[in-house]
């Protein structure tokens, strides 16, 4: 008999065992909450009980060493309870107000700043990048680190923002970070037609799947170098890389020409205005590790322009809708190019079909 007897289809452990007592007692009976200082909030229950939350940043990629350190801290101050947020921040759950400051000191000393609550910049949701993924047009963790180094005051609350700001990063058009509805999205882009390894292709890939994978129908079957392979109609290829996703013999990665693009104005909440997609702001910036200065500068410029100009409670997309896209491009100093105009299936729906214009 093996040491450990595998079980299948048991599902995740039940969450209840992980809830602190104060939550179990007041589950579903919270009355209100208040942010008491940057990164710290209190939830008050109908019973009068209080739950304090201290939120700290995380690079998402965590060593078990760090997780164990979090455990030590949680054992000391939180009766062993903590959680992660949907944006990869860590939340320590306390009942004793006196523990807040010592906890903050300890976690910040360990290198994890506290903040991100309320009308602030939160953590950048991101993806694998060169750390683990084959499709990545750029690294994920590295770009995120560089951008957040620069924007940290908006996380910790040293600098103010009109409203919540959600930045997201995805390393290719698969968009695992679901960056398509972010205040600011940084997106890795391929910019060249894939190179086909014809000799490998028939062994590795199924032709019908491969052909069906292309959003613009750029792929057609062809006999090349004596094998049943494919050809790509160059003018129809917009480098999405989906052919590579289904077929490793169609190489999309390119160390010279892969780069980054920046998108703005998306949101997810239904608050005030309906959820929105992010729209293209900066079509292409070079891949420039280790510190991606062009990308960092571009993002910072957008954040600062927004912070200086938007009204209270306005997410960046609401602000742009109020001032108009021409003004936005003017303010951030970005040329409007042919790349900004949609040319995919529903492109016509984005054309301005009114004479309502600012002049």
């Amino acid at each position: 008999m093996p040491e450990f007897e595998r079980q299948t289809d048991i599902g995740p452990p039940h969450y209840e065992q992980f809830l602190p007592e104060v939550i179990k007692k007041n589950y579903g009976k919270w009355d209100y909450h208040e942010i008491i200082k940057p990164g710290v909030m209190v939830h008050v229950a109908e019973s009068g009980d209080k739950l304090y939350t201290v939120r700290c940043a995380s690079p998402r990629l965590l060593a078990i060493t760090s997780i164990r350190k979090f455990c030590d801290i949680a054992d000391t101050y939180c009766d062993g309870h903590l959680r992660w947020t949907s944006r990869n921040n860590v939340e320590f759950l306390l009942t004793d107000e006196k523990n807040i400051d010592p906890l903050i000191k300890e976690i910040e000393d360990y290198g994890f700043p506290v903040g991100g609550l309320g009308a602030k910049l939160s953590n950048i949701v991101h993806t694998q990048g060169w750390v683990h993924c084959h499709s990545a047009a750029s690294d994920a963790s590295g770009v995120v680190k560089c951008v957040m180094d620069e924007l940290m005051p908006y996380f910790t609350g040293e600098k103010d923002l009109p409203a919540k700001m959600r930045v997201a990063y995805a390393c290719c058009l698969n968009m695992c970070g679901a960056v398509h509805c972010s205040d600011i999205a940084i997106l890795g882009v391929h910019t060249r037609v894939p190179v086909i390894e014809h000799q490998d292709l028939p062994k590795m890939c199924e032709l019908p799947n491969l052909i069906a994978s292309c959003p613009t129908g750029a792929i057609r079957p062809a006999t090349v170098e004596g094998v049943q392979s494919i050809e790509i109609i160059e003018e129809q290829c917009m480098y999405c890389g989906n052919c590579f996703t289904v077929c490793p013999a169609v190489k999309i990665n390119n160390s010279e020409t892969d780069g980054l693009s920046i998108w703005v104005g998306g949101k997810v909440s239904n608050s005030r205005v309906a959820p929105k997609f992010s729209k293209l702001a900066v079509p292409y910036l070079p891949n420039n590790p280790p510190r991606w200065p062009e990308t960092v500068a571009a993002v910072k410029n957008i954040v600062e322009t927004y912070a200086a100009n938007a009204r209270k409670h306005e997410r960046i997309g609401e602000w742009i809708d109020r001032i108009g896209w021409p003004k936005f491009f003017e303010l951030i100093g970005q040329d409007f190019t042919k790349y900004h105009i949609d040319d995919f299936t529903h492109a016509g729906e984005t054309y301005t079909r009114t004479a309502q214009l600012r002049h």
Partner: protein
Amino acid sequence: MTEQRKTPLLDELEKGPWPSFVKEIKKEAGHNPMANDVLGILERSYEEHISHWKHGGIVGVMSYGGGVIGRYCDLPEEFPNVKEFHTYRVNQPSGWFYNTKALRFLCDVWEKHGSGLTNMHGSTGDIVFLGGSTESLEPCFAELSCEKEDMPAFDLGGSGSNMRTPSCCVGPARCEWSCYDTLDACYNITQSFQDELHRPFFPYKYKFKFAGCPNDCVASIARADCSVIGTWQDDIQVDNAKVAEYDTNGTDVQTEVCGLCPTKCMAWDGKTLDIDNSNCVRCMHCINLMPKALKPGKDRGATILIGSKAPIIGGALLSSVFVPFLEMDPESDYEDLKELTEAIWDLWGEHGKNRERVGEFIQRVGLSNFLEEIGLDPVPEMVMHPRTNPYIFFDDEIFED
């Protein structure tokens, strides 16, 4: 133990105030060869501006079709310890709540079987164990999943063309606005569809996300094939005295609250907040601004929306309204939601194309046809507006009266 890799480029990323993933890798690289080699191969990517990972092929644990993403590097000679570098998707508990005991257990297992590196969490919500060998898969899984005293067992989440690991917002555990029990719903659905989670037999992936109110703190409307978003049917609960307090303590209620209401259905005269609830679209804005004074109504449930996804192939989609209001009583065991889900899976399972998400499927076959097959009546809430083009497929029923 080999020497720690030289990484001049990555070292640049140890600088600066934000927590450094390079530091994280180095925390393990000193004693874990896999972590050390991932550091090395990543430095190479930084030098060459290109990924050194290859497609995975099919790796996994026995009897499961998903839960592991296979990964190999293209420089196995130079970086032998990451020749195989698969990730495990370990199904997180609802709401990402942990106690330190469970966390330490996860760390111990991963120290033993893998790189010691994780993502807390993956974008879909899983605990991601980042990088293990093929050989380690079975023992690691066995250790995670085995029954043990006083320690919860963990299972794998989804990958491939199956139901993906559901996730949910913190909900009633800590949020005063949760209109249904997101943690219970997420747990219940996950447990009820274990087969669908572990064994891919759908046309493509299918994701669930549960948000307790329209603030949608799990971004469900942007990235779940089924987005369950809490809402209410009756009137917003108002405490006028508390509204007045906000008004005197720095919130300009008329401008900031009423003025930004999307339907302008509220007015504040200094004493009474007058809400025309029949025109309130449950956007949460006023409640968000004055949590002490306003609360969602008491007749609560959820809006079910279907079909969001990333751009590939037909362009990104947000989920669209499928059931405007569904009761989400835990007592009911979410039977309605499950029935609808199974009806969708049956239909899409039979008629969906390979790699066609349900949102794309609905657009291809038409929402009306989809509803007819599922057995739901069309309601105007499902569309922003009725059709503008006159290309109507009339049935004979129009001639009856």
